[in-house]
């Protein structure tokens, strides 16, 4: 099983080692480590590129002004995606061609809301028909705790675009309730109706929640995906599906 969206806990003495421990104690085998806009975890991403670790792939941020990442960095095997803000999508230029031809992924960010992002993605799809696009964080269903009224229409449009993968991640960020964040579950259910499990990834957004509940958050996202299969529903709600959290530190 893979964590399809994580940062790293930069307050740890060794953020990579700390996260490896999280993975092993949660029985998660692999992870996509995404650069933060602050760039504070970039040195760790560079470390993963320079000394590849088989359980990690990385997604650096696209920064058009300084022209980062470099073409060489983007071509590294450990780099499988590029994180791009909605506002910067029209500036991708040659990098869009590079992503498409190398079969690497575009990881989008909806800083202006999902509707603006989808408009840009429709435009990009006309130029890059084979580009693989990963939309994390449930497609940003809420803005600052308030339901985004454009979300439903935007994700319906999104579901018409071929080759889109949706991430069930950042659950805590969008919730107005404590764990297990039942108020967010309907958004995941709607995405599953529209996209099916074949176009889904499960991620954590670590460490942007209670860090010691890493396994619980991954398990929650997995549960939301699996419970849409009718035969699985009674199992996931039953005693058979026991939550084994790693010990608190």
């Amino acid at each position, binding site marked *: 099983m893979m964590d399809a969206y994580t940062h790293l806990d930069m307050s740890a003495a060794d953020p990579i080692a700390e996260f490896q421990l999280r993975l092993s104690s949660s029985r998660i085998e692999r992870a996509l480590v995404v650069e933060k806009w602050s760039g504070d975890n970039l040195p760790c991403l560079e470390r993963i590129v320079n000394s590849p670790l088989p359980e990690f792939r990385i997604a650096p941020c696209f920064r058009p002004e300084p022209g980062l990442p470099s073409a060489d960095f983007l071509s590294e095997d450990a780099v499988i995606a590029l994180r791009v803000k909605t506002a910067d999508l029209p500036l991708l230029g040659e990098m869009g061609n590079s992503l498409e031809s190398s079969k690497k992924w575009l990881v989008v960010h909806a800083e202006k809301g999902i509707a603006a992002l989808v408009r840009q993605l429709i435009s990009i799809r006309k130029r890059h028909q084979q580009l693989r696009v990963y939309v994390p964080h449930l497609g940003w269903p809420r803005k600052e705790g308030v339901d985004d009224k454009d979300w439903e229409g935007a994700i319906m449009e999104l579901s018409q675009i071929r080759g889109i993968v949706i991430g069930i991640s950042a659950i805590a960020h969008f919730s107005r309730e404590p764990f297990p964040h039942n108020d967010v579950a309907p958004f995941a259910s709607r995405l599953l109706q529209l996209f099916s499990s*074949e176009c889904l*990834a499960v991620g954590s957004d670590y460490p942007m929640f209670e860090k010691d509940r890493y396994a619980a958050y991954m398990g929650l996202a997995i549960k939301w995906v699996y419970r849409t299969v009718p*035969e699985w529903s*009674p199992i996931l709600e039953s005693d058979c599906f026991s939550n084994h959290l790693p010990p608190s530190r």
Partner: protein
Amino acid sequence: MSIGGYVLSAAPNISTGRFLTCDEGIRAKASRMVKNLKRIEKAWFPVS
């Protein structure tokens, strides 16, 4: 079967008919679901 810190148990005391955990059909369904999630994983970790 273990997924993300959750353990799907098939212990004898729960295979009483109330739960279908051990049913082969359920196992096949589970296998397909995992395969779908794994498809994306394989795209990102092709050599693993």
